[in-house]
Protein backbone atom coordinates (compact mmCIF):
# COMPACT_ATOMS: atom_id res chain seq x y z
CA UNK A 1 0.00 0.00 0.00
CA UNK A 2 1.31 3.43 -0.89
CA UNK A 3 0.24 4.96 2.41
CA UNK A 4 2.09 2.62 4.74
CA UNK A 5 4.89 5.15 5.04
CA UNK A 6 2.81 7.57 7.11
CA UNK A 7 0.37 5.04 8.60
CA UNK A 8 -0.08 5.94 12.28
CA UNK A 9 -0.43 2.35 13.47
CA UNK A 10 0.34 -1.19 12.36
CA UNK A 11 -1.79 -2.96 9.75
CA UNK A 12 -3.78 -5.97 10.93
CA UNK A 13 -2.36 -9.20 9.53
CA UNK A 14 -5.17 -10.91 7.64
CA UNK A 15 -6.83 -9.84 4.35
CA UNK A 16 -10.45 -10.48 3.38
CA UNK A 17 -11.37 -13.30 0.98
CA UNK A 18 -11.38 -12.35 -2.71
CA UNK A 19 -15.13 -13.01 -2.78
CA UNK A 20 -15.47 -9.65 -1.04
CA UNK A 21 -14.32 -7.94 -4.26
CA UNK A 22 -17.04 -9.70 -6.23
CA UNK A 23 -19.60 -8.59 -3.65
CA UNK A 24 -18.49 -4.94 -3.80
CA UNK A 25 -18.50 -5.07 -7.63
CA UNK A 26 -22.04 -6.46 -7.52
CA UNK A 27 -23.04 -3.62 -5.17
CA UNK A 28 -21.46 -1.14 -7.61
CA UNK A 29 -23.36 -2.66 -10.54
CA UNK A 30 -26.65 -2.50 -8.62
CA UNK A 31 -26.00 1.15 -7.71
CA UNK A 32 -25.15 2.00 -11.33
CA UNK A 33 -28.28 0.29 -12.65
CA UNK A 34 -30.38 2.17 -10.07
CA UNK A 35 -28.99 5.57 -11.08
CA UNK A 36 -29.28 4.68 -14.78
CA UNK A 37 -32.99 3.98 -14.32
CA UNK A 38 -33.39 7.27 -12.42
CA UNK A 39 -31.56 9.11 -15.20
CA UNK A 40 -33.64 7.53 -17.98
CA UNK A 41 -36.85 8.38 -16.13
CA UNK A 42 -35.65 11.95 -15.56
CA UNK A 43 -34.76 12.40 -19.23
CA UNK A 44 -38.11 10.98 -20.30
CA UNK A 45 -40.31 12.92 -17.89
CA UNK A 46 -38.59 16.26 -17.19
CA UNK A 47 -38.67 19.10 -19.70
CA UNK A 48 -35.01 19.63 -20.63
CA UNK A 49 -35.39 22.77 -22.74
CA UNK A 50 -35.10 25.29 -19.91
CA UNK A 51 -31.86 26.75 -18.64
CA UNK A 52 -31.07 24.79 -15.45
CA UNK A 53 -32.03 21.37 -16.84
CA UNK A 54 -30.62 21.79 -20.35
CA UNK A 55 -27.30 20.35 -19.12
CA UNK A 56 -28.96 17.06 -18.07
CA UNK A 57 -28.79 15.20 -21.44
CA UNK A 58 -24.99 15.35 -21.53
CA UNK A 59 -24.02 15.90 -17.83
CA UNK A 60 -26.24 13.07 -16.58
CA UNK A 61 -24.65 10.27 -18.64
CA UNK A 62 -21.16 11.69 -17.94
CA UNK A 63 -21.74 11.64 -14.17
CA UNK A 64 -23.25 8.15 -14.43
CA UNK A 65 -20.17 6.91 -16.32
CA UNK A 66 -17.89 8.45 -13.69
CA UNK A 67 -19.93 6.81 -10.91
CA UNK A 68 -19.74 3.45 -12.69
CA UNK A 69 -15.97 3.66 -13.09
CA UNK A 70 -15.46 4.57 -9.42
CA UNK A 71 -18.04 2.19 -7.92
CA UNK A 72 -17.27 -0.83 -10.13
CA UNK A 73 -13.73 -0.36 -11.35
CA UNK A 74 -11.95 1.38 -8.48
CA UNK A 75 -13.69 1.20 -5.11
CA UNK A 76 -13.89 -2.61 -4.72
CA UNK A 77 -10.16 -3.01 -5.40
CA UNK A 78 -9.13 -0.15 -3.13
CA UNK A 79 -11.37 -1.50 -0.39
CA UNK A 80 -9.91 -4.96 -0.79
CA UNK A 81 -6.37 -3.61 -0.45
CA UNK A 82 -7.26 -1.51 2.60
CA UNK A 83 -9.49 -3.89 4.58
CA UNK A 84 -7.65 -6.13 7.01
CA UNK A 85 -8.40 -7.83 10.29
CA UNK A 86 -6.76 -9.82 13.03
CA UNK A 87 -7.56 -11.57 16.28
CA UNK A 88 -4.62 -11.59 18.67
CA UNK A 89 -4.44 -13.31 22.07
CA UNK A 90 -5.40 -9.96 23.65
CA UNK A 91 -7.55 -8.04 21.22
CA UNK A 92 -9.61 -7.82 18.04
CA UNK A 93 -8.21 -5.45 15.44
CA UNK A 94 -9.65 -4.28 12.12
CA UNK A 95 -8.90 -1.74 9.42
CA UNK A 96 -11.75 -0.56 7.20
CA UNK A 97 -12.57 2.23 4.74
CA UNK A 98 -11.31 3.18 1.31
CA UNK A 99 -10.54 6.91 1.30
CA UNK A 100 -10.71 7.59 5.03
CA UNK A 101 -9.19 4.68 6.92
CA UNK A 102 -10.37 3.57 10.33
CA UNK A 103 -8.42 1.25 12.59
CA UNK A 104 -10.40 -0.13 15.54
CA UNK A 105 -8.95 -2.10 18.42
CA UNK A 106 -10.94 -3.71 21.21
CA UNK A 107 -9.41 -5.89 23.94
CA UNK A 108 -11.06 -9.27 24.45
CA UNK A 109 -11.63 -8.46 28.12
CA UNK A 110 -13.98 -5.58 27.23
CA UNK A 111 -16.13 -7.41 24.67
CA UNK A 112 -19.82 -7.40 25.55
CA UNK A 113 -21.46 -9.14 22.60
CA UNK A 114 -20.42 -10.59 19.26
CA UNK A 115 -22.88 -10.44 16.36
CA UNK A 116 -22.77 -12.26 13.04
CA UNK A 117 -25.02 -10.86 10.32
CA UNK A 118 -25.57 -12.10 6.76
CA UNK A 119 -27.16 -9.80 4.22
CA UNK A 120 -28.90 -11.04 1.07
CA UNK A 121 -25.89 -10.38 -1.18
CA UNK A 122 -23.53 -11.79 1.44
CA UNK A 123 -25.52 -15.04 1.48
CA UNK A 124 -25.17 -15.28 -2.29
CA UNK A 125 -21.39 -15.12 -1.94
CA UNK A 126 -21.16 -17.17 1.26
CA UNK A 127 -19.95 -14.22 3.34
CA UNK A 128 -20.87 -12.77 6.74
CA UNK A 129 -20.12 -9.69 8.88
CA UNK A 130 -18.76 -10.00 12.41
CA UNK A 131 -19.48 -7.11 14.79
CA UNK A 132 -17.75 -6.99 18.17
CA UNK A 133 -19.62 -4.68 20.55
CA UNK A 134 -18.43 -3.04 23.76
CA UNK A 135 -19.99 -0.79 26.38
CA UNK A 136 -19.09 2.21 24.21
CA UNK A 137 -21.35 3.12 21.33
CA UNK A 138 -18.26 4.07 19.32
CA UNK A 139 -16.07 1.11 20.26
CA UNK A 140 -17.44 -1.44 17.80
CA UNK A 141 -15.14 -3.52 15.63
CA UNK A 142 -16.97 -4.49 12.46
CA UNK A 143 -15.28 -6.91 10.06
CA UNK A 144 -17.33 -7.14 6.87
CA UNK A 145 -17.38 -9.98 4.36
CA UNK A 146 -15.59 -12.84 6.07
CA UNK A 147 -16.30 -16.37 4.83
CA UNK A 148 -19.43 -17.48 6.68
CA UNK A 149 -17.71 -20.44 8.32
CA UNK A 150 -14.81 -18.33 9.54
CA UNK A 151 -17.17 -15.64 10.86
CA UNK A 152 -19.14 -18.21 12.84
CA UNK A 153 -15.97 -19.71 14.26
CA UNK A 154 -14.49 -16.32 15.18
CA UNK A 155 -17.70 -15.26 16.91
CA UNK A 156 -17.94 -18.37 19.08
CA UNK A 157 -14.25 -18.28 19.88
CA UNK A 158 -14.39 -14.58 20.87
CA UNK A 159 -17.53 -15.01 22.96
CA UNK A 160 -15.95 -17.91 24.85
CA UNK A 161 -12.69 -16.11 25.47
CA UNK A 162 -14.48 -12.92 26.50
CA UNK A 163 -16.35 -14.90 29.12
CA UNK A 164 -13.13 -16.30 30.54
CA UNK A 165 -11.22 -13.04 30.85
CA UNK A 166 -14.04 -10.59 31.30
CA UNK A 167 -13.48 -8.05 34.03
CA UNK A 168 -16.04 -5.34 34.47
CA UNK A 169 -16.32 -4.79 30.72
CA UNK A 170 -17.22 -1.14 31.11
Amino acid at each position, binding site marked *: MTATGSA*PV*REPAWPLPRAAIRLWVTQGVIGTVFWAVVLVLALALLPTDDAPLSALPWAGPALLALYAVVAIGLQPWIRFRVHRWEVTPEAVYALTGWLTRTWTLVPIA*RIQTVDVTRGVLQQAYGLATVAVL*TASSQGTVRVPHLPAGVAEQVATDLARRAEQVR*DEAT
Partner: protein
Amino acid sequence: MLVHTVTFKQARQLVPVVLPLGAVIGFDGGTTTVVLLAVGVTLASLGFAALNWSRFGYTDGPTAVVVTRGLLARSARTVPRDRIRGVEVEGPLLHRLLGLVRVRIDAAAGATTAEGEEVVVDGVTRAEGERLRAGLLQRRPAPDGAVDPAAPEAAPATEELARFDPRWLLYAPLAGSYLAVPVAAVGALFRLLDELPRQLRPDVDGVHLTGWLAVVLAVGTALVLLALGAVIGAAVVNWGFRLVRRDGALVADRGLVTRRHTELEVDRIRGVSVSAGLGLRWAGAARVSALVTGLGAAQRRGQLLPLGPRAEADRLAGLLVEDPGELRRHPAAARRRQVVRSVAPGLVVTVVGGALAALLGWWPALAAGLGLALLGVPVGLARYAALGHRAGARSFAVRSGWLVQEQVVLQRRAVVGWQVRQSPFQRRAGVATVVACVGAGSGGYAAVDLAAGDVVPFTRAASEEWAGTLAP
Protein backbone atom coordinates in the same frame (compact mmCIF):
# COMPACT_ATOMS: atom_id res chain seq x y z
CA MET B 1 -53.16 6.80 51.95
CA LEU B 2 -51.05 8.49 49.31
CA VAL B 3 -52.31 11.62 47.70
CA HIS B 4 -51.43 11.39 44.09
CA THR B 5 -50.04 14.61 42.80
CA VAL B 6 -50.10 13.61 39.18
CA THR B 7 -53.54 15.25 39.15
CA PHE B 8 -52.25 18.73 38.59
CA LYS B 9 -49.96 17.65 35.81
CA GLN B 10 -52.89 16.05 34.05
CA ALA B 11 -55.10 19.04 34.61
CA ARG B 12 -52.43 21.07 32.87
CA GLN B 13 -52.38 18.64 29.99
CA LEU B 14 -56.10 19.09 29.56
CA VAL B 15 -55.85 22.87 29.26
CA PRO B 16 -54.96 22.91 25.54
CA VAL B 17 -57.95 20.64 24.89
CA VAL B 18 -60.33 22.79 26.86
CA LEU B 19 -59.29 26.16 25.49
CA PRO B 20 -60.39 25.54 21.90
CA LEU B 21 -63.48 23.84 23.29
CA GLY B 22 -64.23 26.98 25.19
CA ALA B 23 -63.53 29.00 22.10
CA VAL B 24 -66.06 26.97 20.14
CA ILE B 25 -68.76 27.09 22.80
CA GLY B 26 -67.83 30.65 23.40
CA PHE B 27 -67.04 32.14 26.73
CA ASP B 28 -70.03 34.38 26.11
CA GLY B 29 -72.08 31.81 27.98
CA GLY B 30 -70.95 33.72 31.02
CA THR B 31 -69.29 32.56 34.17
CA THR B 32 -71.49 29.48 34.46
CA THR B 33 -69.84 27.81 31.45
CA VAL B 34 -66.38 28.61 32.73
CA VAL B 35 -67.11 27.27 36.20
CA LEU B 36 -68.73 24.14 34.78
CA LEU B 37 -65.74 23.56 32.55
CA ALA B 38 -63.32 24.05 35.44
CA VAL B 39 -65.22 21.63 37.65
CA GLY B 40 -65.48 19.11 34.82
CA VAL B 41 -61.79 19.23 34.07
CA THR B 42 -60.85 18.86 37.72
CA LEU B 43 -63.17 15.90 38.21
CA ALA B 44 -62.00 14.19 35.05
CA SER B 45 -58.33 14.59 35.90
CA LEU B 46 -58.95 13.47 39.49
CA GLY B 47 -60.64 10.39 38.11
CA PHE B 48 -57.76 9.72 35.76
CA ALA B 49 -55.25 10.16 38.53
CA ALA B 50 -57.11 7.84 40.87
CA LEU B 51 -57.35 5.18 38.18
CA ASN B 52 -53.69 5.50 37.30
CA TRP B 53 -52.69 5.42 40.92
CA SER B 54 -54.74 2.36 41.71
CA ARG B 55 -53.09 0.49 38.85
CA PHE B 56 -49.54 1.47 39.85
CA GLY B 57 -47.38 -0.59 42.12
CA TYR B 58 -43.77 -1.34 42.91
CA THR B 59 -41.78 -3.82 44.94
CA ASP B 60 -38.11 -3.76 45.74
CA GLY B 61 -37.10 -7.36 46.07
CA PRO B 62 -33.69 -8.65 47.12
CA THR B 63 -32.53 -8.97 43.50
CA ALA B 64 -34.69 -6.62 41.48
CA VAL B 65 -37.11 -3.71 41.51
CA VAL B 66 -40.41 -4.39 39.76
CA VAL B 67 -42.73 -1.58 38.69
CA THR B 68 -46.18 -2.47 37.39
CA ARG B 69 -48.53 0.03 35.80
CA GLY B 70 -50.98 0.63 33.01
CA LEU B 71 -54.68 1.34 32.85
CA LEU B 72 -55.75 -1.39 30.44
CA ALA B 73 -52.53 -2.73 28.96
CA ARG B 74 -50.51 -3.74 32.00
CA SER B 75 -46.77 -3.48 31.96
CA ALA B 76 -44.27 -4.73 34.50
CA ARG B 77 -40.71 -3.58 34.32
CA THR B 78 -38.05 -5.48 36.20
CA VAL B 79 -34.75 -3.81 36.91
CA PRO B 80 -32.08 -6.08 38.39
CA ARG B 81 -30.44 -4.41 41.38
CA ASP B 82 -26.93 -4.73 40.03
CA ARG B 83 -27.98 -2.78 36.95
CA ILE B 84 -29.05 0.26 38.97
CA ARG B 85 -26.60 3.08 38.30
CA GLY B 86 -28.08 5.90 40.27
CA VAL B 87 -31.11 7.03 42.26
CA GLU B 88 -32.46 10.54 42.25
CA VAL B 89 -34.95 11.82 44.77
CA GLU B 90 -36.67 15.03 43.77
CA GLY B 91 -39.28 17.11 45.53
CA PRO B 92 -41.21 19.53 43.31
CA LEU B 93 -42.99 22.32 45.16
CA LEU B 94 -46.36 20.59 45.32
CA HIS B 95 -44.79 17.33 46.43
CA ARG B 96 -42.95 19.17 49.17
CA LEU B 97 -46.11 20.79 50.46
CA LEU B 98 -47.70 17.37 50.76
CA GLY B 99 -44.58 15.70 52.17
CA LEU B 100 -44.04 13.57 49.09
CA VAL B 101 -41.12 12.90 46.77
CA ARG B 102 -40.50 11.45 43.32
CA VAL B 103 -37.85 8.75 42.97
CA ARG B 104 -36.08 8.22 39.67
CA ILE B 105 -34.07 5.03 39.23
CA ASP B 106 -31.42 4.94 36.52
CA ALA B 107 -30.74 1.54 35.06
CA ALA B 108 -27.80 0.63 32.88
CA ALA B 109 -28.37 0.75 29.17
CA GLY B 110 -27.32 -1.91 26.73
CA ALA B 111 -24.36 -1.54 24.41
CA THR B 112 -26.43 -0.60 21.40
CA THR B 113 -28.81 1.93 22.95
CA ALA B 114 -26.81 4.77 24.40
CA GLU B 115 -29.74 6.00 26.44
CA GLY B 116 -30.15 5.19 30.08
CA GLU B 117 -33.42 3.61 31.02
CA GLU B 118 -35.32 5.30 33.75
CA VAL B 119 -37.92 4.08 36.18
CA VAL B 120 -40.00 6.64 38.03
CA VAL B 121 -41.84 6.04 41.27
CA ASP B 122 -43.91 9.15 41.84
CA GLY B 123 -45.65 10.36 44.96
CA VAL B 124 -44.22 8.31 47.80
CA THR B 125 -43.66 9.78 51.25
CA ARG B 126 -40.31 11.32 51.99
CA ALA B 127 -39.34 8.56 54.44
CA GLU B 128 -40.19 5.88 51.90
CA GLY B 129 -38.18 7.71 49.23
CA GLU B 130 -35.21 7.89 51.54
CA ARG B 131 -35.56 4.18 52.36
CA LEU B 132 -35.69 3.29 48.65
CA ARG B 133 -32.63 5.41 47.90
CA ALA B 134 -30.56 3.99 50.73
CA GLY B 135 -31.69 0.42 50.06
CA LEU B 136 -31.13 0.45 46.33
CA LEU B 137 -27.67 1.92 46.49
CA GLN B 138 -26.39 -0.25 49.31
CA ARG B 139 -22.72 -0.91 48.76
CA ARG B 140 -22.33 -4.18 47.00
CA PRO B 141 -19.10 -6.14 47.34
CA ALA B 142 -16.78 -4.42 44.91
CA PRO B 143 -16.03 -6.47 41.80
CA ASP B 144 -12.48 -7.74 42.06
CA GLY B 145 -9.78 -5.76 40.36
CA ALA B 146 -12.00 -2.73 40.07
CA VAL B 147 -11.31 -1.14 43.40
CA ASP B 148 -10.61 2.49 42.85
CA PRO B 149 -7.78 3.66 45.06
CA ALA B 150 -9.51 7.01 45.24
CA ALA B 151 -12.62 5.57 46.89
CA PRO B 152 -12.33 5.75 50.64
CA GLU B 153 -13.25 2.49 52.34
CA ALA B 154 -13.36 4.23 55.71
CA ALA B 155 -16.40 4.97 57.86
CA PRO B 156 -19.35 6.68 56.15
CA ALA B 157 -17.85 10.09 56.68
CA THR B 158 -19.22 12.88 54.56
CA GLU B 159 -16.74 15.11 52.86
CA GLU B 160 -17.88 18.25 51.12
CA LEU B 161 -16.38 18.55 47.65
CA ALA B 162 -18.11 21.64 46.35
CA ARG B 163 -20.60 24.24 47.47
CA PHE B 164 -22.34 26.69 45.17
CA ASP B 165 -21.55 30.33 45.77
CA PRO B 166 -24.56 32.53 44.84
CA ARG B 167 -22.16 34.98 43.24
CA TRP B 168 -21.49 32.37 40.53
CA LEU B 169 -25.03 32.96 39.30
CA LEU B 170 -23.63 36.03 37.56
CA TYR B 171 -21.97 33.69 35.05
CA ALA B 172 -25.39 32.44 33.94
CA PRO B 173 -26.04 35.08 31.21
CA LEU B 174 -22.84 33.88 29.52
CA ALA B 175 -23.91 30.25 29.31
CA GLY B 176 -26.05 29.32 26.32
CA SER B 177 -28.24 26.83 28.14
CA TYR B 178 -29.28 29.34 30.79
CA LEU B 179 -29.84 32.09 28.21
CA ALA B 180 -32.28 29.73 26.56
CA VAL B 181 -34.49 29.77 29.68
CA PRO B 182 -35.93 33.30 29.32
CA VAL B 183 -36.19 32.91 25.56
CA ALA B 184 -38.20 29.72 26.01
CA ALA B 185 -40.37 31.46 28.60
CA VAL B 186 -41.16 34.30 26.20
CA GLY B 187 -41.93 31.77 23.49
CA ALA B 188 -44.32 29.88 25.77
CA LEU B 189 -46.03 33.13 26.69
CA PHE B 190 -46.66 33.96 23.03
CA ARG B 191 -47.99 30.47 22.39
CA LEU B 192 -50.36 30.82 25.30
CA LEU B 193 -51.52 34.20 23.98
CA ASP B 194 -52.17 32.55 20.64
CA GLU B 195 -54.34 29.89 22.20
CA LEU B 196 -56.43 32.35 24.20
CA PRO B 197 -59.73 33.38 22.62
CA ARG B 198 -59.59 36.87 21.17
CA GLN B 199 -61.77 38.51 23.82
CA LEU B 200 -59.36 37.50 26.56
CA ARG B 201 -56.24 38.77 24.84
CA PRO B 202 -54.74 41.88 26.38
CA ASP B 203 -55.27 44.81 24.09
CA VAL B 204 -51.83 46.08 23.18
CA ASP B 205 -51.49 48.75 20.58
CA GLY B 206 -48.51 48.50 18.28
CA VAL B 207 -45.60 50.22 19.94
CA HIS B 208 -44.20 52.95 17.75
CA LEU B 209 -40.45 53.32 17.97
CA THR B 210 -39.02 56.57 16.80
CA GLY B 211 -35.42 57.58 16.68
CA TRP B 212 -32.24 55.75 17.54
CA LEU B 213 -32.52 56.39 21.24
CA ALA B 214 -35.74 54.43 21.52
CA VAL B 215 -34.24 51.48 19.63
CA VAL B 216 -31.14 51.51 21.83
CA LEU B 217 -33.31 51.71 24.93
CA ALA B 218 -35.52 48.84 23.80
CA VAL B 219 -32.55 46.61 22.92
CA GLY B 220 -30.85 47.50 26.20
CA THR B 221 -33.96 46.66 28.21
CA ALA B 222 -34.35 43.38 26.34
CA LEU B 223 -30.72 42.46 27.06
CA VAL B 224 -31.04 43.29 30.75
CA LEU B 225 -34.26 41.26 30.98
CA LEU B 226 -32.57 38.37 29.18
CA ALA B 227 -29.62 38.42 31.57
CA LEU B 228 -31.98 38.68 34.54
CA GLY B 229 -34.02 35.74 33.24
CA ALA B 230 -30.88 33.65 32.84
CA VAL B 231 -29.76 34.42 36.39
CA ILE B 232 -33.20 33.58 37.77
CA GLY B 233 -33.35 30.39 35.71
CA ALA B 234 -29.94 29.31 36.98
CA ALA B 235 -30.91 30.19 40.55
CA VAL B 236 -34.11 28.11 40.39
CA VAL B 237 -32.22 25.03 39.23
CA ASN B 238 -29.00 25.37 41.18
CA TRP B 239 -29.84 27.17 44.39
CA GLY B 240 -28.00 25.71 47.36
CA PHE B 241 -26.04 23.26 45.21
CA ARG B 242 -23.83 21.09 47.34
CA LEU B 243 -21.71 18.09 46.40
CA VAL B 244 -20.52 15.69 49.07
CA ARG B 245 -18.77 12.33 49.06
CA ARG B 246 -20.47 9.89 51.37
CA ASP B 247 -19.69 6.22 51.70
CA GLY B 248 -18.40 5.62 48.18
CA ALA B 249 -21.03 7.76 46.50
CA LEU B 250 -21.22 11.33 45.31
CA VAL B 251 -24.34 13.09 46.52
CA ALA B 252 -25.57 16.32 44.94
CA ASP B 253 -28.39 18.45 46.35
CA ARG B 254 -29.83 21.42 44.54
CA GLY B 255 -32.87 23.42 43.51
CA LEU B 256 -34.89 26.37 44.77
CA VAL B 257 -38.44 25.20 44.08
CA THR B 258 -37.85 21.56 43.22
CA ARG B 259 -35.18 20.05 45.47
CA ARG B 260 -33.19 17.35 43.73
CA HIS B 261 -31.07 14.76 45.43
CA THR B 262 -28.77 12.82 43.11
CA GLU B 263 -26.48 10.01 44.01
CA LEU B 264 -23.67 8.55 41.90
CA GLU B 265 -21.39 5.67 42.78
CA VAL B 266 -17.73 6.70 42.80
CA ASP B 267 -16.84 3.22 41.52
CA ARG B 268 -18.71 3.90 38.31
CA ILE B 269 -17.05 7.19 37.55
CA ARG B 270 -14.63 6.80 34.65
CA GLY B 271 -13.69 10.40 34.12
CA VAL B 272 -14.68 14.03 34.32
CA SER B 273 -15.44 16.60 31.68
CA VAL B 274 -14.74 20.30 32.20
CA SER B 275 -16.51 22.33 29.54
CA ALA B 276 -16.91 26.02 28.83
CA GLY B 277 -18.52 27.92 25.98
CA LEU B 278 -17.11 31.10 24.50
CA GLY B 279 -18.83 33.36 27.03
CA LEU B 280 -17.89 31.27 30.03
CA ARG B 281 -14.26 31.09 28.87
CA TRP B 282 -14.17 34.85 28.50
CA ALA B 283 -15.36 35.18 32.10
CA GLY B 284 -13.01 32.45 33.33
CA ALA B 285 -15.80 30.06 34.26
CA ALA B 286 -16.60 26.42 33.48
CA ARG B 287 -18.89 23.53 34.34
CA VAL B 288 -17.97 20.01 35.43
CA SER B 289 -19.71 16.69 34.86
CA ALA B 290 -18.78 13.17 35.75
CA LEU B 291 -18.63 10.50 33.05
CA VAL B 292 -20.39 7.55 34.61
CA THR B 293 -20.75 4.09 33.09
CA GLY B 294 -24.25 3.10 32.22
CA LEU B 295 -25.67 6.56 32.70
CA GLY B 296 -25.89 6.97 28.94
CA ALA B 297 -27.65 10.11 27.84
CA ALA B 298 -28.79 11.07 31.33
CA GLN B 299 -26.04 13.69 31.36
CA ARG B 300 -27.77 16.03 33.78
CA ARG B 301 -27.48 13.35 36.44
CA GLY B 302 -23.71 13.45 36.21
CA GLN B 303 -23.37 17.17 36.75
CA LEU B 304 -20.88 17.97 39.50
CA LEU B 305 -20.58 21.74 39.21
CA PRO B 306 -23.30 23.51 37.24
CA LEU B 307 -21.40 26.80 36.98
CA GLY B 308 -18.30 28.12 38.66
CA PRO B 309 -14.85 29.66 38.31
CA ARG B 310 -12.41 27.70 36.20
CA ALA B 311 -10.01 27.19 39.11
CA GLU B 312 -12.78 25.66 41.20
CA ALA B 313 -13.79 23.42 38.28
CA ASP B 314 -10.22 22.19 37.81
CA ARG B 315 -9.81 21.58 41.54
CA LEU B 316 -13.01 19.50 41.65
CA ALA B 317 -12.00 17.52 38.54
CA GLY B 318 -8.59 16.84 40.10
CA LEU B 319 -10.25 15.47 43.25
CA LEU B 320 -12.06 12.78 41.26
CA VAL B 321 -9.57 11.84 38.56
CA GLU B 322 -5.86 12.36 38.82
CA ASP B 323 -4.63 15.29 36.74
CA PRO B 324 -2.29 13.93 34.03
CA GLY B 325 -0.39 17.21 33.84
CA GLU B 326 0.07 20.01 31.35
CA LEU B 327 -1.50 19.25 27.95
CA ARG B 328 0.73 18.67 24.95
CA ARG B 329 0.18 20.80 21.84
CA HIS B 330 -0.61 19.19 18.51
CA PRO B 331 1.80 19.53 15.55
CA ALA B 332 1.93 22.53 13.21
CA ALA B 333 0.14 20.48 10.55
CA ALA B 334 -2.90 20.46 12.85
CA ARG B 335 -2.85 24.27 12.98
CA ARG B 336 -2.72 24.44 9.19
CA ARG B 337 -5.63 22.02 8.91
CA GLN B 338 -7.80 23.87 11.43
CA VAL B 339 -7.23 27.22 9.70
CA VAL B 340 -7.94 25.75 6.26
CA ARG B 341 -11.12 24.11 7.54
CA SER B 342 -12.34 27.34 9.12
CA VAL B 343 -11.53 29.47 6.07
CA ALA B 344 -12.93 27.04 3.48
CA PRO B 345 -16.67 27.87 3.88
CA GLY B 346 -15.87 31.58 3.50
CA LEU B 347 -13.80 30.85 0.39
CA VAL B 348 -16.64 28.89 -1.19
CA VAL B 349 -19.01 31.82 -0.60
CA THR B 350 -16.34 34.17 -2.02
CA VAL B 351 -16.01 32.15 -5.23
CA VAL B 352 -19.79 31.96 -5.71
CA GLY B 353 -20.06 35.65 -4.82
CA GLY B 354 -17.28 36.46 -7.31
CA ALA B 355 -19.19 34.65 -10.04
CA LEU B 356 -22.37 36.53 -9.12
CA ALA B 357 -20.53 39.85 -9.09
CA ALA B 358 -19.02 39.17 -12.49
CA LEU B 359 -22.27 37.97 -14.07
CA LEU B 360 -24.94 40.08 -12.39
CA GLY B 361 -22.98 42.84 -10.73
CA TRP B 362 -24.39 41.75 -7.35
CA TRP B 363 -21.53 42.09 -4.89
CA PRO B 364 -22.90 41.63 -1.29
CA ALA B 365 -22.23 37.86 -1.43
CA LEU B 366 -18.65 38.54 -2.44
CA ALA B 367 -18.16 40.91 0.49
CA ALA B 368 -19.78 38.47 2.93
CA GLY B 369 -17.58 35.65 1.63
CA LEU B 370 -14.43 37.69 2.08
CA GLY B 371 -15.49 38.68 5.57
CA LEU B 372 -16.24 35.06 6.50
CA ALA B 373 -12.91 33.89 5.11
CA LEU B 374 -11.03 36.53 7.09
CA LEU B 375 -12.94 35.63 10.27
CA GLY B 376 -12.03 32.00 9.64
CA VAL B 377 -8.37 32.68 10.36
CA PRO B 378 -8.74 33.62 14.06
CA VAL B 379 -11.40 30.93 14.50
CA GLY B 380 -9.07 28.30 13.04
CA LEU B 381 -6.21 29.46 15.25
CA ALA B 382 -8.48 29.33 18.31
CA ARG B 383 -9.63 25.83 17.36
CA TYR B 384 -6.02 24.77 17.10
CA ALA B 385 -5.20 26.36 20.46
CA ALA B 386 -7.98 24.27 22.02
CA LEU B 387 -6.41 21.00 20.87
CA GLY B 388 -4.33 19.11 23.37
CA HIS B 389 -3.66 15.69 24.84
CA ARG B 390 -1.62 14.21 27.65
CA ALA B 391 -1.21 10.76 29.12
CA GLY B 392 -0.29 10.58 32.81
CA ALA B 393 0.41 7.73 35.20
CA ARG B 394 -3.18 6.67 35.90
CA SER B 395 -5.21 8.95 33.65
CA PHE B 396 -5.13 10.86 30.39
CA ALA B 397 -6.71 14.01 29.02
CA VAL B 398 -7.91 15.28 25.64
CA ARG B 399 -9.24 18.74 24.82
CA SER B 400 -10.94 20.22 21.78
CA GLY B 401 -13.69 22.57 20.67
CA TRP B 402 -13.98 26.28 20.10
CA LEU B 403 -17.65 27.24 20.49
CA VAL B 404 -17.79 24.92 23.47
CA GLN B 405 -14.41 23.77 24.66
CA GLU B 406 -14.40 20.45 26.45
CA GLN B 407 -11.52 18.98 28.37
CA VAL B 408 -12.02 15.36 29.31
CA VAL B 409 -9.87 13.53 31.84
CA LEU B 410 -10.32 9.77 31.83
CA GLN B 411 -8.98 6.95 33.94
CA ARG B 412 -6.81 4.36 32.21
CA ARG B 413 -9.29 1.60 32.96
CA ALA B 414 -12.06 3.59 31.24
CA VAL B 415 -10.83 2.74 27.75
CA VAL B 416 -12.73 -0.16 26.16
CA GLY B 417 -11.20 0.34 22.73
CA TRP B 418 -9.27 2.63 20.42
CA GLN B 419 -10.30 3.98 17.07
CA VAL B 420 -7.74 5.66 14.81
CA ARG B 421 -9.07 7.59 11.81
CA GLN B 422 -7.11 9.07 8.94
CA SER B 423 -8.60 10.86 5.93
CA PRO B 424 -6.56 11.30 2.73
CA PHE B 425 -5.84 14.91 3.78
CA GLN B 426 -4.71 13.81 7.23
CA ARG B 427 -2.48 11.19 5.62
CA ARG B 428 -0.75 13.87 3.56
CA ALA B 429 -0.36 16.09 6.61
CA GLY B 430 1.01 13.21 8.68
CA VAL B 431 -1.64 13.41 11.39
CA ALA B 432 -4.47 11.16 12.60
CA THR B 433 -7.47 11.41 14.91
CA VAL B 434 -7.50 9.04 17.88
CA VAL B 435 -10.78 8.26 19.62
CA ALA B 436 -10.74 6.70 23.06
CA CYS B 437 -13.87 4.55 23.21
CA VAL B 438 -15.42 4.73 26.66
CA GLY B 439 -18.53 3.11 28.09
CA ALA B 440 -19.55 6.42 29.66
CA GLY B 441 -20.51 9.90 28.59
CA SER B 442 -20.80 10.31 24.83
CA GLY B 443 -19.08 6.96 24.18
CA GLY B 444 -15.90 8.31 22.64
CA TYR B 445 -13.48 11.18 23.16
CA ALA B 446 -11.18 12.27 20.36
CA ALA B 447 -7.68 13.66 20.22
CA VAL B 448 -7.98 15.48 16.89
CA ASP B 449 -5.02 15.69 14.49
CA LEU B 450 -2.40 13.98 16.59
CA ALA B 451 1.01 13.58 14.91
CA ALA B 452 0.98 10.12 13.29
CA GLY B 453 4.12 9.17 15.20
CA ASP B 454 2.52 10.04 18.54
CA VAL B 455 -0.48 7.73 18.13
CA VAL B 456 1.17 4.54 19.37
CA PRO B 457 2.97 6.11 22.37
CA PHE B 458 -0.21 7.93 23.41
CA THR B 459 -2.50 4.89 23.20
CA ARG B 460 0.08 2.80 25.03
CA ALA B 461 0.46 5.30 27.84
CA ALA B 462 -3.26 5.94 28.15
CA SER B 463 -4.52 2.35 28.40
CA GLU B 464 -3.33 -1.08 29.41
CA GLU B 465 -0.83 -3.41 27.62
CA TRP B 466 -3.33 -4.60 25.03
CA ALA B 467 -2.92 -1.25 23.22
CA GLY B 468 0.54 -2.51 22.21
CA THR B 469 -1.27 -4.41 19.44
CA LEU B 470 -1.29 -1.13 17.53
CA ALA B 471 2.52 -0.87 17.55
CA PRO B 472 4.28 -1.86 14.31
